[in-house]
């Protein structure tokens, strides 16, 4: 739809408070033949329960009443109802469970489903478990599988490659707004760099802008380091109602904003419409705007999700009121588009979020300190859950506990780098994760906040 009725813009409400109480990850690899998806999922949830909650799996399982599973593509894992296998492997039968699928936003949507289960009163303790098995086929076939999440009649045959669909947007973005080409590469540079300080990351590295620009071009103008990883791995979080949350931890993190948006699967079908304004934008901001909206340069789904989440969480200035952010940086260009869609900068000025230093550690809104999809992982079903795990640890002040401890580096057969940087945001109180599918077919925005009162 290109115009809204009152019902469409209703701000979501939770019927009772929902908290996140634990998170766990495996490491992420291109290729993980040592472990099946069942084993990876178990290991991520085990970490959440044992290292996070500090209780035994046996005690934890006695409290669970519903589970949500998050996997993008059945054809990658080549196992329909894989969630039933994982649910069984974790020993949760006969508890009810659902598997959620919204492409790249599957992780965010799965957490949203878990939030709904708690908020409605249906459940009081819900693990949300995500994974993707992307190594059963080679990279070219993997790209074709991902591109079968484009329209098979009108798009997939044209490249069998999502990088191309984003490169079409990138070319148009550069045409309309003329950012420095170098600024786009700095997003990749930043996230590959932060990935160096994560024991979970797949593609850590320090690159110069020049190295990124001169890397092989996947689909012009996107180069390889500007495109996300294809990963195998798992991520789990645990959601709870208030009573259960405070029984499990003195420091639960509260879910204060949720939003979910969508747009046409085919980028081709995006009709021109008026800009949907966020709480921090006045109508005059875009009155002289000449470019089409959302066109090929903006994601209506991201804007819509942010609109709902900000209004729900009473956020009027996201850069000021959020302390830490995880975006779905599948490609450098989509990240810059997202900065504008979620109101960090006005349309056309997203590059300034990078150039100003805001997006870096020490800046006003450090973004993708996890290493993101470019540096750390894109094991699709796990991705949105991975992002929220990192936000959760930041808000609890536990970034060091789960990144700096040699125990985790050793667990994955890695050695912590000598020039290790501490990426804990001091006094992080509130953070957001953006989970994103297709060329913006589904987007969720989930805002977490410190759920305990500071003594």
């Amino acid at each position, binding site marked *: 739809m290109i115009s809204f009725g009152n019902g469409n813009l209703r701000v979501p409400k939770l019927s009772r408070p929902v908290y996140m109480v634990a998170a766990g990850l495996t490491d992420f690899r291109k290729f993980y033949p040592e472990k099946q998806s069942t084993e990876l999922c178990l290991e991520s949830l085990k970490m959440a329960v044992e290292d996070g909650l500090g209780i035994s799996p046996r005690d934890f399982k006695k409290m669970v009443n519903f589970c949500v599973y998050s996997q993008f593509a059945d054809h990658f894992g080549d196992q329909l109802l894989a969630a039933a296998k994982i649910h069984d492997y974790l020993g949760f039968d006969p508890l009810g469970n659902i598997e959620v699928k919204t492409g790249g936003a599957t992780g965010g949507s799965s957490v949203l489903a878990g939030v709904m289960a708690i908020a409605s009163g249906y459940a009081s303790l819900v693990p949300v478990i995500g994974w993707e098995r992307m190594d059963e086929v080679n990279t070219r076939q993997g790209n074709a599988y991902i591109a079968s999440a484009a329209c098979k009649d009108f798009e997939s045959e044209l490249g069998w*490659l999502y990088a191309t669909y984003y490169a079409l947007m990138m070319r148009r973005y550069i045409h309309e707004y003329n950012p420095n080409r170098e600024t786009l590469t700095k997003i990749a540079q930043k996230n590959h760099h932060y990935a160096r300080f994560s024991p979970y990351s797949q593609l850590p590295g320090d690159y110069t802008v020049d190295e990124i620009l001169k890397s092989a071009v996947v689909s012009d103008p996107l180069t390889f380091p500007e495109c996300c990883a294809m990963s195998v791995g798992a991520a789990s979080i645990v959601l709870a109602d208030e009573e259960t949350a405070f029984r499990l931890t003195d420091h639960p993190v509260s879910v204060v904003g949720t939003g979910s948006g969508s747009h046409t699967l085919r980028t081709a*079908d995006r009709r021109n419409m008026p800009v949907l304004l966020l709480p921090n934008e006045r109508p005059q901001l875009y009155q002289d705007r000449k470019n089409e909206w959302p066109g090929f340069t903006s994601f209506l789904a991201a804007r819509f999700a942010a609109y709902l989440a900000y209004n729900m969480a009473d956020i009027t200035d996201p850069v000021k009121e959020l302390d830490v952010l995880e975006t779905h940086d599948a490609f450098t260009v989509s990240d810059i588009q997202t900065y504008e869609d979620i109101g960090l900068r006005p349309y056309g000025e997203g590059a300034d979020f990078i150039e100003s230093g805001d997006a870096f550690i020490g800046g006003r809104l450090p973004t993708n300190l996890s290493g993101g999809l470019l540096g750390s992982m894109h094991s699709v079903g796990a991705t949105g859950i991975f992002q929220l795990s990192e936000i959760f640890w930041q808000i609890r002040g536990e970034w060091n506990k789960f990144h700096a401890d040699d125990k985790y580096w050793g667990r994955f057969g890695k050695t912590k780098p000598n020039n290790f940087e501490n990426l804990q945001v001091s006094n992080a109180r509130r953070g957001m994760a953006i989970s994103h599918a297709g060329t913006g077919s589904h987007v969720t925005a989930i805002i977490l906040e410190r759920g305990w009162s500071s003594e």
Partner: protein
Amino acid sequence: MSKQRQQVTISADSKTKLADVLFRQNIPQGIILRENPRNITHFHSYGGISKFFDGLAAGTLWGTVCGSCGNAGIWLPPRVHCPDCWQEMSWVKIDTSQATVYTHSTTNYPGAGFKATVPCPLISVEIPGICTKLMSYLSEFGDGEPYIGMPIRPVFSQNPTYTILDLSWVSRD
């Protein structure tokens, strides 16, 4: 008297092959990685938009337009139903005389199953009066092409595959 028993055998074409290298890395010792080959045919119907693919084979570009939504524009890709009012739309021939390149990307590393040669210049097409921007490709290009705003005309495959690849574009100059 001994009981008669029938044998169950595994069909001879299920040849077992174990992989020892994947992504140029050795498979760790003790891990079995079995090759599961595929060769499956799906029968995919174009349903109510079959006319569009039939049109490509006949050298005509068809779109659809909603009679009850006024000047909402022509849909290309076509849809049977209008997404705004859910009424069935009417078919209309597309006038491509003003078609231009809206955006483009030349792909070098397409996914498996891509049927065109690389590098392949993929484009989105802008046509006045059309509310969408069809994705397609240039079947002929020179230095500096494609570029945004490039005037183009459609070319229809002589050997139709009944896929979107039957339509491509070349310079109008």
